[in-house]
């Protein structure tokens, strides 16, 4: 199904999407050296407001025809110089667009000029055609580490128990704020000091400066971010612990914490103590509503589709199958997974359940995914093979419904197919997320609420 020359219904951005990673760092300022509309294309897909210095307030060169013909370095130089006067920020990251990269502007020397003057200015080539925002997320983090952190790092050696966390891509993960808060909370719960690096719970660039002091790094993702932890390993000899999906719900979060504890040789009792307390309250909430949850279960659609990146998808599959008892229909992995990681991603799906196999499709083309879902829903007369043998259940409208977990693009499809729809990915037009978490113990509870609430909404 993967056709890399057709994208219907975009769900991610181009390399310039790295601007959102920069904006997620407190008081960091992107300076966009590109055509006038690029930044806005990224922002309108991924963000709902300008925050401190996003959206309409991002400095940029708004390259025009003469910049394309004669080069845009001088203009960039001027804009950087004046950005430093006008914008109150701690770190300035020049990001290029297609125009500058095709024309071949020497952006490096502009950045170097200001860095030499002691200003925190770095750069990265992010011409849209170079990659996408999953890949440029790692590239921009590495650019900051290599060009800024390395020069400004605290020289006081390894700090015991200090970890850097790299998880999902800010804004591409619509729950990134809440997710990072939860990840920080649980890691602190087992006694670690956490550099969460993005969002309001981070101390901004002061925190970034201590990246080299970490005892180890934690990567919570399928493959996005591997480039970062590998860079840190090479540069500072920092080992990393890789958890290949987002831990959602009690089973996965406890497993995650135990593995981290083991990796870091944290006192086992301490880890178990925290897990015990968390699980006690977690399961008490379920217990408290048990009658409803159990009895209403038969009103839930049995199957779910997801259209999201692999780190989310695998975590969701684990939680929805193993904790909520839903069954997977086809899972669409939308992040343009590089060939070399596809097998590893598929392996993770195999490990989700020993009772069933999960059908996985890699595609960047949402339109193709929707065609496949439409075909499956319209042609499947059976809810799931294992229970219904050859019983034709197509008349049972309710029984054949499915959940579609995806982006705003799926709202219309869900309506057309009489399915239930939950927003978990951008564009997230129909959902506002402030600090909601979809990972950890709290994330599991929230998803359970969303699954049941969506269903309750159907009733008059």
């Amino acid at each position, binding site marked *: 199904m993967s056709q890399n*020359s057709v994208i219907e219904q975009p769900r991610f951005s181009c390399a310039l999407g790295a601007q959102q990673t920069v904006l997620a760092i407190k008081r960091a300022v992107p300076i966009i050296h590109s*055509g006038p509309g690029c930044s806005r294309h990224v922002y309108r897909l991924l963000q709902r407001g300008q925050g401190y210095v996003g959206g309409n*307030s991002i400095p940029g060169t*708004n390259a025009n025809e003469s910049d394309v013909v004669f080069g845009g370095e001088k203009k960039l130089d001027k804009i950087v110089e004046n950005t430093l006067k006008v914008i109150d920020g701690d770190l300035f990251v020049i990001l290029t667009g297609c125009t500058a990269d095709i024309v071949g502007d020497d952006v490096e020397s502009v950045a170097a000029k200001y860095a030499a003057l002691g200003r925190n200015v770095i750069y990265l080539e992010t011409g*849209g*055609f170079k990659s996408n925002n999953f890949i440029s997320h790692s590239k921009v983090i590495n650019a900051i580490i290599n060009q800024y952190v390395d020069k400004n790092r605290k020289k006081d050696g390894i700090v015991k128990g200090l970890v850097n966390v790299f998880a999902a891509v800010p804004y591409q993960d619509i729950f990134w704020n809440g997710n990072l808060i939860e990840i920080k909370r649980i890691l602190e719960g087992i006694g670690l000091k956490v550099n969460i690096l993005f969002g309001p719970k981070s101390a901004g660039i002061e925190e970034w400066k201590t990246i080299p002091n970490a005892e180890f790094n934690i990567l919570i993702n399928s493959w996005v971010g591997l480039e970062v932890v590998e860079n840190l390993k090479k540069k500072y000899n920092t080992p990393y612990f890789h958890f290949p999906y987002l831990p959602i719900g009690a089973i996965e979060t406890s497993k995650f914490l135990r593995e981290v504890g083991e990796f870091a040789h944290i006192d086992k009792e301490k880890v178990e103590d925290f897990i015990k307390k968390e699980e006690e309250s977690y399961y008490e909430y379920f217990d408290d509503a048990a009658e409803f949850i159990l009895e209403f279960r038969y009103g839930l659609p049995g199957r779910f589709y997801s259209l999201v990146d692999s780190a989310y998808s695998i975590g969701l599959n684990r939680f929805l199958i193993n904790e909520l008892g839903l069954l997977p229909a086809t899972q669409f992995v939308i992040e343009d997974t590089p060939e070399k990681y596809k097998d590893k991603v598929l392996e993770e799906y195999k490990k989700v359940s020993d009772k069933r196999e999960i059908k996985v499709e890699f595609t960047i083309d949402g*339109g193709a995914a929707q065609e496949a879902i439409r075909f499956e829903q319209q042609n499947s007369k059976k809810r799931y093979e294992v229970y219904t043998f050859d019983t034709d259940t197509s008349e049972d409208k309710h029984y054949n419904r499915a959940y579609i977990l995806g982006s705003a693009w799926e709202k219309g499809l869900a309506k057309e197919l009489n399915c239930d729809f939950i927003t978990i990915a951008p564009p997230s037009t129909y959902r506002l997320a402030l600090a909601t978490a979809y990972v950890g113990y709290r994330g599991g509870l929230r998803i359970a609420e969303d699954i049941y609430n969506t269903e309750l909404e159907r009733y008059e």
Partner: protein
Amino acid sequence: MSKVNITYPEVEVREKRLGSITGYQGTASDLVCKSHGCKRLKDCKRSFSQCMGCNSSTAFCQLSMIRDIAVVNHAPAGCIGEAYDYNFTYRVGQKQRGIKEVVQGRYFNTNIKEKDTVFGASAKLQKTVREAYRRANPKVIFVTSSCASGIIGEDIEQIVQDLSKELGIPVIYCSCEGFRSKIWTTGFDAAYHAILRSIVKKPRKREKRINIINFWGSHIFDDLFKRLGYEVQYIVPFSSVEELEYISEATATIQICGTLSTYLAAGLEDLYGVKEIKSPPPFGIKATDLWLREIGKVLNCEEEVEKIIKEGHEKVVPKLEKYRSIFKGKTGYVTAGSAYGHALTGLLEEVGLKILGVGIFHHDPIYDNGDENSDALAGVVKNYGDIGNFSVCSKQIYELINNLNRLKPDIIIARHMGMTTSAAKLGVPSLLLTDEQFIMGYDGVLKFASRVYESLDNREFIDNFAKHSKLPYTKWWLDQVPNYFLGGEK
């Protein structure tokens, strides 16, 4: 003779066609005077700028909601990031307009990658167009270009001609590379250029029908034109290809915003004899009087129009006086695109607020019809007097903030999303008006006034928001004059 020329596949950009500018600080009367040739109108370059928007968005805005089409954006994946924004408007709008089966917009992107910038991306474009045709079965496919496709020199016009033959439907090129123009409304022109060039047909007859060039606003013109014996057709969003083919048969075209529709309205008159109502759109009582009288003349129904004017005044003026007395002493600031900004300025004056300043995004000294009477800003100055602190700000928030911080208005009126936040950070309440039609005509004045009243009254959210939010600007900047970075002549 209008400035419309559909000979070439690419539309001429506004800077060259109309002499439009994106940087100015001064007074409204001076800008009007320069626009009409009393002195030279200079564009000023900025040595600091914030990211704007580009003409690919505005082209997409007008093409994406035509009902039975597909759009193929020949670009890296990021260029079509706003697709769902428009799809949302499209879906909501279909429902509002009573279209029974709400459909999804069919928007495709060719995902131009690094190697395509070296070896070319024509094959990708062909493949995507064919796939769009297979999936969506559209009546027309528009191909929009991008900075990347433009710089690597893709011959899109040749490709779409070949594909048109192969597929048997019009495959139409719309040139909207971001770097082509500093004025993103050039994208509207690009979309209309494509429509005029490749969809609109010669009229078979003249119909008693009025074209209304608009975005997605409410249907406020139905009753008016019914009374005058005419049908109305709202274009271009939500129109079908079939309907667009014969917009050439309408008697006249009216516009809700000259900035939006200058090219299409002038083109329809020039090429097909559809009369363009040239008065600025009916925002405020005075402008509405003028606009109606021109319609009366063009449609030959002056007597009925005078009745409508009389009724409108009787209904609206007494209530308006009440609002004017409430608003006495209150001050406002307007920020919007060009023509709509002028309209909002007039309206704000009319309901009785004192205008402290205006920040419009660009300025067209003349429209495609070449008629000075279409100058809405001239109308505002004539009707309500001069306006100081008049800037052409190209959506530069740092200039806006600087202005607002100095002027401290009681309210700002905005048309574009993203402009209200900055005002709110300074504790200035704002009113965002995205439905132009809502505040048009006589009734519109009152609707506008009541919205202004509500925004002025309901301060709780803004006060709290301002208290807790941070502006990213240095103290140094706030102490400079707003046009500090606005250089001289280019």
